[in-house]
């Protein structure tokens, strides 16, 4: 089976349409919280800002370590999250490693490759406004 989502749509200041490859996911922690995740095929690993992590999960003890993003160096700490992706008829729970970034900038949950692209075959079909996810082990 395949999970299919539409791109998120917004307008830039000049009125042009911006499409973003986003999907909903549920973070399973002390309580389940759903959020919107941007699929970021260029990111080695998933990431979220510390403000979002404080709501979604327990932040591990330990020192932040240096990381690097498009905005330059950033302090980060890595943890593992259990997330559920799917709908009423098809659900998949997976564990993904994620970097919690110590930044004051807000950005959405970014789904990077490690742990996520290993589990799903992902097709971005922007002309037809669809993002499809097929569980890797279910391919024929």
């Amino acid at each position: 089976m395949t999970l299919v989502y539409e791109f998120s749509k917004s307008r830039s200041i000049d009125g042009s349409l911006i499409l973003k490859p986003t999907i909903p996911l549920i973070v399973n922690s002390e309580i389940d919280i759903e959020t919107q995740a941007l699929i970021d095929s260029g990111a080695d690993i998933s990431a979220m800002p510390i403000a979002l992590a404080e709501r979604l999960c327990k932040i591990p003890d330990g020192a932040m370590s240096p990381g690097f993003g498009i905005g330059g160096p950033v302090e980060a700490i890595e943890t593992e999250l259990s997330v559920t992706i799917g709908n009423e008829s098809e659900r998949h729970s997976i564990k993904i490693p994620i970097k919690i970034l110590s930044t004051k900038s807000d950005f959405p949950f970014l789904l990077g490759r490690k742990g996520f692209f290993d589990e799903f075959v992902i097709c971005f079909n922007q002309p037809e406004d669809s993002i499809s996810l097929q569980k890797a082990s279910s391919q024929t």
Partner: protein
Amino acid sequence: MSENYEYFKSADLSGYQGEWVVICDRKLASHGKDLKVAFEDAMKKHPCAIPFVALVPKNDETWIL
């Protein structure tokens, strides 16, 4: 797709650009720049089984990641 996510994608949230929104039972339960404050406010006013939280993008913002 959950009802809360469906609401998030279809509702006009342009008045909350750059803010975090918390959606419960297809309703905007709270919003604000500070997610911690918005989330706690939402849980007081409108607790639900699986709340939805997300950042509303700004129209003049291009994400280069």
